[in-house]
């Protein structure tokens, strides 16, 4: 059993893991970079260890510093969260070599899936369909050009060592290919230290549907149903829901079986996610495997009524998966939607930074907020702009959408611009409500003109300017603002 758990991460995911660990009687250890010492997560663990100063590569991305923090704090297990070093076989191996528990899959499973070209070859061998594309033998421009002609334009250039859309670009015609390959190689080399790129056919109006899988060290591998992740901008998800409106029982069974086969083929252990593309003809293709806990895992927790982090920790401690999971005894209840609140411009998606002057989270029936921020938190440029995740659960899909919009309207965030208007526009759109949408949903949303502020908004602003003291005068100011208002009214 795990006694003291270090979470090698920050933000909402660190807070989320601490919560479950505490419920299990496991002591928690946070790590933080010096420039991030006031972050919420470092105050939510039993102890917090500094990773020192420097760029992210020398703090949250530094294996030696994470290992030193584990040693100094006496931790006997490491949970990597998502992002940062969560898919680093080097960290997984180093943790295990020191006799600590790694709350994740074996390093060999991570390596097999991290190399997208090798993963595609392995999936083909396991009988799992992959997106038509170039194979491992196509390395130079000439071979990739002829592969592109065979696949047919448009194609995507992707980094073999990549993920998260980094180094990815869309190519419409053969003439654009050499430039896109060069750019892709440059970004891939800089980001991953590996400049290999490959091509995938760009499927028209595809949906992105993923399956949660879970495996223990006793030979059990199961899937925990799907998550629909087609609402994306910049190839990154912003809204996820389960069940997927696109699947029926037969397709769900076929995709679930493929997901389990994919996980088994790399001898997977723990929580993982198999991502599929689903085309307009309802054919599905393996896209990639995320060998870690997924950002959107809470919607699975909501409909299945379970705690995935708890089972990550149980499996890392040697436990077998529950019998109900292994005997197809799990049945999702109701409908769940996750919305990711990002500090970014809702129109051009560019990240924003600043200080959260006001922060009031939504609450109420069927509402969960996983957040790494509070009032006063600073949103910097060095870290992921994800502020928090709002997860709603309701009896059915229409009720979940109404609950989502209700909860979004309760969210008060002042000081940093967020994508909330985009989330509302996506959920309100006829296309999303119909359930018949694909990864082009965000691009197809009608351009929204932000409405004029209401009378109440103008009056509130005027009252704020009228208050005498600077800063947060209108919030904490004198009970009678009129005494202070003269200067402004003159």
């Amino acid at each position, binding site marked *: 059993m795990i006694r003291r758990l270090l979470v090698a991460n920050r933000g909402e995911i660190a807070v989320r893991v601490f919560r479950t660990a505490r419920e299990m009687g496991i002591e928690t250890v946070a790590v933080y970079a010096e420039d991030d010492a006031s972050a919420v997560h470092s105050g939510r663990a039993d102890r917090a260890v500094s990773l020192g100063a420097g760029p992210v590569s020398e703090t949250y991305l530094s294996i030696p510093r994470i290992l030193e923090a584990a040693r100094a704090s006496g931790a006997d297990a490491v949970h990597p969260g998502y992002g940062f070093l969560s898919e680093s076989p080097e960290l997984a191996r180093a943790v295990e070599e020191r006799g600590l528990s790694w709350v994740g899959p074996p390093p060999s499973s991570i390596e097999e899936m991290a190399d997208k070209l090798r993963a595609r070859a392995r999936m083909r061998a396991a009988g799992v369909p992959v997106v038509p594309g170039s194979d491992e033998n196509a390395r130079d421009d000439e071979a990739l050009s002829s592969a592109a002609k065979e696949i047919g334009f448009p194609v995507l250039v992707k980094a073999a060592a990549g993920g998260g859309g980094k180094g990815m670009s869309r190519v419409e015609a053969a003439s654009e290919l050499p430039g896109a390959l060069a750019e892709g190689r440059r970004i891939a080399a800089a980001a991953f230290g590996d400049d290999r790129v490959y091509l995938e056919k760009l499927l028209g109006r595809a949906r992105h549907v993923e399956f949660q899988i879970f495996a223990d060290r006793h030979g059990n591998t199961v899937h925990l149903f799907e998550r629909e992740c087609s609402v994306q901008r*910049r190839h990154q998800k912003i809204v996820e829901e389960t069940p997927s409106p696109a699947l029926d029982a037969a397709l769900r069974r076929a995709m679930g079986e493929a997901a389990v086969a994919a996980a088994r083929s790399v001898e997977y252990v723990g929580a993982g996610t198999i991502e599929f593309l689903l085309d307009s003809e309802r054919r599905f293709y393996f896209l990639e495997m995320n060998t870690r806990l997924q950002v959107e895992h809470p919607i699975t927790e909501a409909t299945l009524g379970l705690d995935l982090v708890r089972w990550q920790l149980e499996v890392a401690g040697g436990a077998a998966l529950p019998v109900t999971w292994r005997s197809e005894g799990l049945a999702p209840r109701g409908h769940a939607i996750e919305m990711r609140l990002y500090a970014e411009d809702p129109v051009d998606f560019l990240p924003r930074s600043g200080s959260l002057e006001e922060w009031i989270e939504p609450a109420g029936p069927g509402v969960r907020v996983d957040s790494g921020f509070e009032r006063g938190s600073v949103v910097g440029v060095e870290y992921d702009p994800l502020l928090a995740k709002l997860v709603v659960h309701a009896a059915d899909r229409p009720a979940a959408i109404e609950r989502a919009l209700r909860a979004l309207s309760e969210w008060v965030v002042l*000081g940093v611009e967020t994508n909330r208007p985009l989330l509302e526009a996506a959920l309100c759109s006829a296309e999303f409500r119909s359930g018949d949408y694909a990864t082009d949903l965000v691009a197809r949303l009608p351009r929204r003109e932000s409405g004029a502020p209401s009378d109440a908004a*103008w009056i509130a602003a005027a009252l704020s300017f009228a208050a005498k003291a600077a800063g947060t005068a209108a919030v904490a100011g*004198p009970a009678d603002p009129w005494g202070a208002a003269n200067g402004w009214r003159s």
Partner: protein
Amino acid sequence: MSRLTAGDEARDVRLEKGSAELDGRTVRFREIRRGGALVALEIGGEVHPVRAVREGDRVFVACDGSTYEMRRGPAIAPGASRRGSAGEHGAGLLAPMPGRVRKTLVRRGERIAKGDVVLILEAMKMEHAIRAPRDGIVTKLDHHDGDLVEAGTVLAEIAADGT
């Protein structure tokens, strides 16, 4: 009387006790405060939850499920919006977002063509190619690779060719 703006919208607002004039129209209101802080306004029998935070010349307002950034003074001229991809300001090329200069691909004095990548800006998990908006000569280039820049910082200036 004061002129307030929110994006393209503007109102002349005059506060009286218990009422406000918005572009000459009188609106009666009641403040609901908690611990001195304004939490709602009652207007015509309807309660509007509201939060407002002032930061210098800006007030951030959350009201009825929407969020606004309001300013005092004349409206921002159309076209001066900070939105958009790499913005231009005179001859300058502006950082569209806060980030870190990853790699500068041109030199001062260099003649470049419209569409050439001037530098790569990295913000959070993305790299953005900042491209020249027109042909010209690089006359200003103040940042070094690795520098942090704020949104709106002039990254480079490009003088039109032959001037």
